[in-house]
C-alpha cells in the first residue's frame, strides 16, 4: 500500500548570514494528521513556518506538497497550492468587518480584475456573488456566525485568532500551519481552538501546530517533532517524545513541570 505523504520537508536549511536558524530539518506529514512542532524559544519553529511559506528563502533543502516540489515558489503561489497559515500575532484586517475579512480571503484565490469589478462586468459580478455565498456559508458553520457584521478590530482577541484560522480555511488548504494559535487565549477559548484543530484534521487536512502550551500539544498532536537550536532532535508520538532522553535534557527536563503549571495558570486567568 502506498503511503500518501501530504507534506515532505527535506533537509530544509535557513541561514541569515552566518546564523543558521533552521539546520537540515526533515520530516513528513500525512493527510489527517496533526503534527506538533515544539522546542524552546529560538529553536527555529517560526522560521521553519516562514520557510515553508516562502516568507524567507530556503538556503538548502526542498519542500514537497503531495509529492511536487514547491520550493522557490512565491508565498501566494504556495498558498494557492494549498498551504495556509496563521501568524503568531494574528494579522486580521481590523478596519473591515468579519464577513469582509472572509470575502478578502475567498477572493484572494482568483484576484478578480479591479476594472471588471468597478464596471460591474458579468464575470466579475458572478465571481463576487459566489464569493459572497461562500463567505456566508463559511461564517454560518463557524463560531463567529453572529459576528459577520462586526469590525474585525472590535472582536475580542480570542475571536481574532479564530477569524484568522477561518480565513486560512477559506483557502481550502491541504496543509494548515498554525503558529501559536493558543497564545493569549483564555482556557475556554483555547479549548474551542483545540476542538477546531481536531475538526480540521477530521476533514483530511494536515495540521502543523507550533505551540508553547505543551499539555495542549500532547493532547491534540498525533506526532511531534522537537526542534532545538534549529535542529530536529526528536520525532515521534507524544508518548515517545516525552520519553526521549534528548528532549528531556534540552526541553522537557526541569521546565516541563513549570510550563505545565504556568501554562495552566495562565489559561485559567
Amino acid at each position, binding site marked *: 500500500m502506498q503511503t500518501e505523504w501530504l507534506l515532505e520537508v527535506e533537509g530544509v536549511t535557513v541561514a541569515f548570514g552566518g546564523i543558521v536558524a533552521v539546520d537540515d530539518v526533515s520530516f513528513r506529514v500525512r493527510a489527517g494528521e496533526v503534527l506538533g512542532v515544539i522546542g*524552546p*524559544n529560538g529553536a527555529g519553529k517560526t522560521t521553519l513556518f516562514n520557510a515553508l*511559506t516562502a516568507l524567507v528563502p530556503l538556503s538548502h533543502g526542498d519542500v514537497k506538497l503531495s509529492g511536487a516540489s514547491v520550493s522557490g515558489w*512565491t*508565498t*501566494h503561489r504556495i*498558498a*494557492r497550492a494549498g498551504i*495556509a497559515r496563521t*501568524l503568531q500575532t494574528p*494579522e*486580521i*484586517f*481590523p*478596519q*473591515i468587518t468579519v464577513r469582509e*475579512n472572509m*470575502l*478578502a*480571503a*475567498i*477572493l*484572494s*484565490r482568483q*484576484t*478578480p*480584475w*479591479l476594472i471588471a*469589478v*468597478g464596471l460591474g462586468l458579468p464575470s466579475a459580478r458572478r465571481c*463576487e456573488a459566489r*464569493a*459572497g455565498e461562500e*463567505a456566508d456559508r463559511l461564517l454560518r458553520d463557524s463560531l463567529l456566525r453572529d459576528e459577520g457584521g462586526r*469590525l474585525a*478590530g*472590535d472582536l*475580542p*482577541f480570542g475571536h*481574532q485568532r479564530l477569524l484568522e484560522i477561518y*480565513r*486560512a480555511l477559506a*483557502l481550502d488548504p491541504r496543509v494548515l500551519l498554525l503558529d*501559536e494559535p*493558543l*497564545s*493569549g487565549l*483564555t482556557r475556554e477559548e483555547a479549548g474551542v481552538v483545540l476542538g477546531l484543530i481536531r475538526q480540521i484534521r477530521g476533514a483530511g487536512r494536515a495540521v502543523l501546530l507550533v505551540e*508553547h502550551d505543551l499539555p495542549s500539544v500532547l493532547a491534540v498532536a498525533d506526532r511531534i517533532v522537537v526542534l532545538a537550536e534549529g535542529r530536529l532532535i526528536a520525532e515521534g508520538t507524544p508518548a515517545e517524545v516525552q520519553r526521549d532522553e534528548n528532549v528531556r535534557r*534540552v*526541553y522537557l*527536563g526541569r*521546565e516541563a513541570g*513549570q*510550563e505545565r503549571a*504556568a*501554562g495552566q495558570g*495562565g*489559561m485559567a*486567568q
Partner: protein
Amino acid sequence: MSRQLLGTARNPAVQALLVLAIPLALGLVVGPYWVSELTLVGMYTLVVIGLNLFMGYAGQVSLGQAGFFGIGAYAVGIASTHFGLAPWIGLVLGMVLAAAAAWLLGVLALHLMQHYLALATLAFGIIADVAFQQLPLTGGNSGLYGIPAFTLNAIGFLALTWGAVALGSWFTNRLVRSGTGSLLEAVRSSEVATALMGADPATVKRQAFIVSAVLAAAAGGIYASWEGYIDPTVFTFALSINLVLMAVVGGLRSVVGAVLGAAGVEAINQILKFAGASLAPATSGALQLTIYGLALVVIMIYWPEGLVTGLGARSRARRTAGPQLPLQSVDGHERDGGQVVDGAQRS
C-alpha cells in the same frame, strides 16, 4: 447631516449624480471666471479620485501623477495638431498609453517597499516631464498650440469634466465597496497576510495604479483640449505634489474628500499665486512649494488618513483599539520558561 441622509449619499449612483449636478448647477449661476475654476477643480478631482484609490485603499504613494496627466494631455495635443485626429481619439489613446506606462512601471517597481515605490513614481514623473521638454513631437519647451476643443462651450466643458468625475467616482465607489474592495483593504493592512491568503499584493497594487493612471490621463486629455495650449511647465513635480496634497487634505478614502481636497488646495493655490506675486514675484513658485511641503508633512504626521477621513477615523480608531490580552497570557509565562531553558543549556 443625519445618518439616513448619509446612507443615501453613500450609494455610488447617488454620489455620482450629486458630483455631476452640484458643480453644474453652480456653474449655471456663477460667472465665467468661476466656471473655469470649477472646471479646473473637476480635472484635479478626477486625478485625485484615482490617487485616492491607489493611496487610500491600496495604501501606496505616487509622486508621479503629473506624468500621467501629461501623457493624457500630450496624447490629445499630438493626435490633434500633428495627425489631425479628433481630440476624442487622442483622449482614448492617452488613457491607453498611460495604462501601458503604469503597467510597465508597476512591473518594474511595484514589488518595491512603499518608500522606494514612491521614489520610483517620483523618477517616472521627472522622466516624463523631461521627455515632454525634449521630444520633437511634444514641441519642446514651447509646447503645443491650437489644440482643438471638443466643440464645447465653457459650460459644456464643465459638464464633460464633472461627468468624467461622476463616472470615476461611480467606478471607484463600486470597487471599494465590493468584496474585491476588501481585498484592497487587505493589501493596505498587511501584504504578508494577503500573500498568505493566496493573492499577489503586487498584482492588486499594479491594477490600482493603472486605474489611477488612466483617470489622470483622462483629466490631462480634457485639460489639453479645454486650455487649447500645453507646455512642459504644467506637468512638473510641483503638480504631482499638489495632487498628493489634494488627496491627503481631502482624505484618502472618500470621493467627497477628493472634491473638497481639490477645491481647497486650488483655492489656496490662487491665494498663494496672488499673494506671492504681490509679495515676492521672483520666488512665488518656491513659496508655494514650501508651504505645500510643510502642509503635507504636518498632515501626514497628525492626520495620516487625511483631514476629512481623519476626523471620522479618530472615532473609529477608538473602537478598534488594540486587542486586549489577558494580563498573564500563556505567552508571557512561556517567555520565562524559555529563559530558564537557555540558562540550563549554557550551564
